[in-house]
Every structure is written in C-alpha cells, then in structure tokens.
C-alpha cells in the first residue's frame, strides 16, 4: 500500500507541475484524482498497519516514529483537500492546490523517508540497518519477495484504474457545467 501510495502521489505531483506549466484544468483534474487515490491507499495502509500492530506489538498505536511520520504525511494531504474544498473559483483553486500539492509531496521526504531512518523503531530496517525504512530488503525471503513485488504492481495498477474512472467522471462533470 505504501509503495502504491508513493507512486500515485508522485504521479499527482507530476500533473500539478504540468498544470502550473500549462494552466489547463485537465491536468488539475488528473492531479486531484491521483492525490485522492494516493490518500485512500495511505489511509488503508495506516488502518491495516494499526490492526497488524495490535496483534504484533500489543497495541494499535505504539507511537513508532514511522507510524507518526506516516500519520503526519497523511494529515498534510488531507489539508490539500480542505484547501480545494474551501475555494470556489476554479482557476484559483487549481493554481493554489497545485502549488500546495508540490509542497505536500516534498513533505513526504522528511516524514516518510528521512526521519524514520534517523530513529530506532519497531519496524524492520530501523536505525543502523541499511535499506528501506518500512521493510528490510535483505531480511525478506525469496518466497516473500515473489509475493510482495507483484502485489505492489497489482495494487498500484488497480489504483491507477480506479483513478482513471474518477478522472472520466470529473471531466464529464466539468463539461456539463461548461467549464471545460
């Protein structure tokens, strides 16, 4: 889920930059839909992570730096949708939210990728070990690898497909309202 989320949020970032370059509302629709899907992946990741932690670590929320970082990152993305919802003018909404989206993607760097690497954690791959903060690549058995990476690709493609559905609905709506 986290891999998929990062990929979807990155696509959203690309479309936000494209919007700022082109000022075409189509790109804004794309950026918004990918951010929404990425956020849903993140929320599902944190819920299932809490469920898993409840049985592995004895409590749904142990204040692990990786959990906290992920929660902060998600809250920053929630603010993106709060910002979008609070603006009426389509042009202004698209421009401001594109800038904010770029900011929130770069907030993923400290919250998901830097701070978790600096602190000790209950997750595998904590301080002192090499590699990814969420999973420890060297610890994963070959069996798990063959399941894990196709699963990443599969969930991501599913997410992309649902996002395209959302984009098509959004485009129809905009056409109907005569904005596009």
């Amino acid at each position: 889920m986290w891999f998929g989320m990062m990929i979807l949020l990155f696509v959203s970032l690309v479309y936000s930059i494209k919007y700022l370059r082109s000022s075409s509302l189509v790109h804004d629709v794309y950026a918004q839909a990918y951010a929404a899907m990425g956020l849903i992946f993140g929320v599902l990741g944190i819920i299932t992570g809490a469920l898993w932690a409840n049985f592995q670590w004895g409590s749904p929320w142990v204040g692990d730096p990786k959990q906290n970082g992920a929660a902060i990152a998600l809250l920053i993305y929630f603010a993106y949708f709060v910002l979008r919802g609070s603006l009426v003018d389509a042009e202004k909404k698209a421009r401001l939210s594109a800038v904010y989206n770029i900011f929130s993607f770069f907030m993923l760097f400290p919250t998901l990728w830097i701070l978790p690497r600096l602190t000790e954690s209950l997750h595998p791959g904590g301080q002192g070990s090499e590699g990814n903060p969420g999973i420890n690549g060297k610890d994963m058995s070959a069996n798990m690898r063959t399941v894990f990476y196709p699963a990443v690709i599969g969930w991501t493609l599913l997410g992309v497909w649902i996002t395209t559905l959302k984009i098509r609905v959004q485009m129809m709506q905009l056409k109907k309202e005569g904005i596009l």
Partner: protein
Amino acid sequence: MLTLLQAQQAAPQSIMLQNGKIFLVMSVVCIVLIGLFIYVASIDKKIKQLEK
C-alpha cells in the same frame, strides 16, 4: 530489539493469532478491499447523478 520481543510476548494469543496469522492477513485484505469498494461506490454514485 528487546522492546520488540517484549511487545510480542505482551500480545495476547487471541483468535487472530491461532492458525498462524491467516486470520490477521485475511482481515487486512478485507479492510483494503472494503475501502477500495467504498471509493468505487462513491464514483458510481456520481456517474448516476450525471446520467440523470
């Protein structure tokens, strides 16, 4: 590492941990699928509104 071990020992052997961890894995899968389904259903609702 010590804290991880302690946490593992502290966790009660509930129904989720009997039979390996398959119930836990299945409930994770169910949550993910339910979440995605709710999102798709919300898109479906919007399509319905557009069709009218």
